[in-house]
């Protein structure tokens, strides 16, 4: 909190702003010294010094795209900040935090990632709507409410999941005793007979960390790019054995299984 009864607000200037740290729970300060950062479009709120913001497609930055960006299809949603000075980042008054990766990997919901150092490589995750960061460096992510770190094995609510690090096995889990059969389907569909709304979770096992936010409000999803239409690519729509009409609607994370199949249609 910046104001206290009796005392004036804390006034920041470039010498008192923290370097690569939080100003308060909702604002993050990044220092640039001739270096570069990747930002999601429109997340800069103010800066001291001289900086340039350029779209990823900028010719001079082509090299960066090659080393740090491996999904050219969504590169247009990111900008490169370069120059010297201190810059404040924020996103709709959500909580922001920075995370350090050391030769690690972390997968995060695309809407939650705000900014990252070019030493990290950003790739599309196999899980639709998620992005994976690989390498060594710092990134800044937003969440609705503070982030909680959990150790697997754990089952989490789809809306509360922010991301996971090093866990190899995110999968869906359904409470089958409650969900199967026509009555289960009806319950899930209509809420009649008492759907708890928690019949479906994501399950994580193995060594790693799972990041959860303390609310179930999702951030607006950023386009994470499309995948090539090839057999065997999840979300690619080219896999054999899918019935007609199924390829048209992509399955969102958190969406229940197909009800038609549940009803045996």
């Amino acid at each position, binding site marked *: 909190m910046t104001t206290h009864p009796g005392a004036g607000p804390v006034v920041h*200037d470039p010498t008192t702003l923290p370097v690569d740290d939080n100003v308060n729970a*909702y604002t993050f300060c990044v220092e640039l010294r001739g270096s570069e950062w990747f930002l999601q479009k429109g997340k*800069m709120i103010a800066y001291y010094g001289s900086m340039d*913001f350029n779209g990823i497609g900028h010719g001079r930055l082509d090299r960066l795209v090659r080393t740090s960006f491996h999904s050219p299809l969504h590169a*247009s949603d990111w900008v490169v900040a370069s120059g010297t000075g201190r810059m404040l980042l*924020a*996103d709709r008054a959500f909580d922001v935090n920075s995370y350090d990766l050391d030769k690690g990997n972390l997968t995060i919901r695309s809407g939650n990632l705000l900014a990252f150092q070019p030493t990290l490589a950003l790739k599309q995750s196999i899980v639709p709507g998620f992005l994976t960061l690989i390498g060594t460096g710092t990134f800044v992510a937003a969440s609705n409410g503070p982030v909680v770190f959990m150790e697997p094995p754990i089952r989490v609510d789809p809306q509360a999941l922010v991301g996971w690090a090093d866990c190899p096995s995110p999968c869906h889990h359904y409470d089958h005793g409650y969900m199967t059969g026509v009555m289960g389907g009806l319950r899930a569909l209509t809420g009649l007979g008492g759907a708890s709304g928690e019949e479906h979770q994501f399950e994580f096992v193995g060594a790693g960390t799972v990041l959860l936010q303390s609310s179930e409000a999702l951030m607006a999803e950023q386009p994470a790019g499309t995948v090539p239409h090839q057999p065997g690519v999840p979300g690619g729509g080219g896999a054999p054995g899918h019935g007609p009409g199924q390829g048209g609607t992509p399955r969102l994370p958190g969406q229940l299984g197909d009800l038609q199949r549940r009803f045996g249609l």
Partner: protein
Amino acid sequence: MFRLQGSKVLAVDMTGDAVKAKNGSMVAYDGRMDFKKLTGGGEGIRGMVTRRITGEQMTLMEVKGHGTCWFADRASEINLVDLRGDKLFVESSNLLATDSGLRTGTSFTGLRGASQGNGLFTTTVEGHGQAAIMSEGPAVVLRVSGQYPLTVDPGAYVAHQGNLRQSFQSGVTFRTFLGEGGGEAFQIRFEGDGIVYVQPSERNSIAGDV
């Protein structure tokens, strides 16, 4: 006397004096209070006409009495500003309350207002006393001096005070039209001496999309 109770409720202790506050922002009071709508923000006929023409509409009420009155608006964060003869520039939608001794008026802001969708005019508060301004998320207060000019995203700008010059920067290039803009096409640059309040959230504005 203004004080914050938590960060989202403003408590004002009054002993027969008055405050001006945004219409309908009273949440509770203790003691005896009179509420009076101030037509035209208490700026007289001329102020009323100016506000109508400039679109910088503001409905204020005057609260007078003995006791404590609490104000809040849509769970916005509240920031207290002490004015000692200087002028505070704030968007009318971000102004919650002022001492009744402070004068409010309108001033021309130019292109900054247009780029953030707030119109070409802004509200000024001047005199000696306290004012309470609202922001979405706690505001970060940034000092501007001759050595350290500041650049702000128009959507995150809340208010500023002191002797500041503002200039409008546009980064619109041909790339913006190719859909490869920098995402920060419109910026306001503050130079001089003073402080600027920015909020950790951006209003939806045309500047957010290009």
